């Protein structure tokens, strides 16, 4: 029942249209040595799986597939773990259907 299904989020994101603002990520993770519980929660809670653990056990973000829901902001901005802004005008996900 609680076994993680082998869902490939990348395949889902492939359906979407993005205008990536190269070099201007709209969400940033604060530098850390050991991630907080809030940061670790993002590995699972982010619906686009933008957050990943690197080899040193730190949480990293790649915003290219972000669908701008704000879940990570709600969880990890209060602790200062991440900085969240909207993408610059015209950039980011552009929903065809919404």
């Amino acid at each position, binding site marked *: *029942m*609680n076994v*993680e*299904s082998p*869902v490939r*989020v990348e395949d*889902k*994101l492939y*359906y*979407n249209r993005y*205008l990536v603002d190269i070099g201007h990520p709209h969400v940033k993770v604060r530098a850390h040595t050991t991630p907080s519980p*809030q940061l670790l*929660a993002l590995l*699972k*809670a982010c*619906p*686009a*799986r933008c957050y990943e653990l690197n080899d040193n056990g730190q949480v990293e973000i790649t915003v290219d597939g972000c*669908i*701008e*829901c*704000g*879940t990570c*902001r*709600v*969880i990890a*901005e*209060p602790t200062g773990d991440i900085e*969240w*802004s*909207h*993408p*610059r*005008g*015209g950039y*980011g*996900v*552009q*929903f*065809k*259907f*919404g």
Partner: protein
Amino acid sequence: MIEERFDAIVVGAGMAGNAAALTMAKRGMKVLQLERGEYPGSKNVQGAILYADMLEKLIPEFREEAPLERHVIEQRFWMMDDRSHVGMHYRSDEFNEERPNRYTIIRAQFDKWFSSKVREAGATLLCETTVTELVRDERERIVGVRTDRRDGEIHADVVVLAEGVNGLLGTRAGLRARPRPDNVALAVKEMHFLPRETIEARFNLKGDEGVVIEAAGTISRGMTGMGFIYANKECISLGIGCLVADFQRTGQTPYGLLDQFKSHPSVAPLVAGSEVKEYSAHLIPEGGYKSIPQLYGEGWVVVGDAAQLNNAIHREGSNLAMTSGRIAAEAIGLVKSRGEPMSAANLSIYKKMLDDSFVIKDLKKYKDLPPLMHTQSQNFFLTYPQLISKAMQNFVRVDGTPKAEKEKATLKSFVKARSWAGLFGDACRLARAWR
């Protein structure tokens, strides 16, 4: 700085922003609307059901031109366990009326049309423009906005914050609190395309008739959440949402939940063979009445999802957004027509008008339900659906057991799972919160 001065700046081109901008432009006010997406709707996500009454108040003739999908003639509620669902369906030919009450829509397409009406009414729309900051004067009043365009400062008498559930401006400026994990849900959704004849056959529909299904139960794995399936003309909107606090607590993944819902034996045949064309996610305000923030201040008002105006019980959000946008605009129009400044004291009329509308009255009615659902999620979303499913199976399966024994077994399973006191308490709590 842009020298031109506006009567009002509306931040956002969703339901609330469009309703506000349209209402003010129709009154002859000079309105500037700012939208960060490439086109209106490109950042907006909803199930989506449109309630005719609230749009009719803004655009009476909308049925002739708006991109509507299907008018809803049937509502299904499903209580699900892993292999079954207990359903309550309401279908009526009366919904095949000349002016139907509810429609399914596709937001990106609908919002483009809605925005065209706003511009026809005389408002100026600037897309691809992210508002980065509110501008204050020396007396701390909001007097305009700063955008990410060059020379991006623009001034107006009043700023309408229609920036959505995840709006940054109001929270950064300290006008309201950031949404908390326990008062917003995260919903994920896929658009499944199928030939329209296939959809009509699978959902028992003819012509433009439509069906919506709302589902709760073990699909949310004990979290406070709901699934939905809405029939559009040539696609099906399928999604599921749960409280962010529950995702955080359980470590469940939104996409894992979505794929499990999609493969449920009651759901899979409805979308079999479909082509998925989009995957989206959005936050939904779930806090209800108790999480509504300060709605107005010196030179500003907040409307729609940004103000947490969402009826989680009836799954109504966009009509509250439209109505709050319209009422805020009417209040602003009233202040302007008296030639008075857009001060907090004068703008307080917006709250008075909203209090008198169904928006606040409905949210007040259910003010205790969100906390109940959020703290009792294991019972309401896991235990009861399983018990009810077993009871139904016990009722319909014929196996030679005397009926009295079957009923006894059903009752016993309820008492065992929740105890008499628990059952009584749950019933009382639910009744009290509903009333």
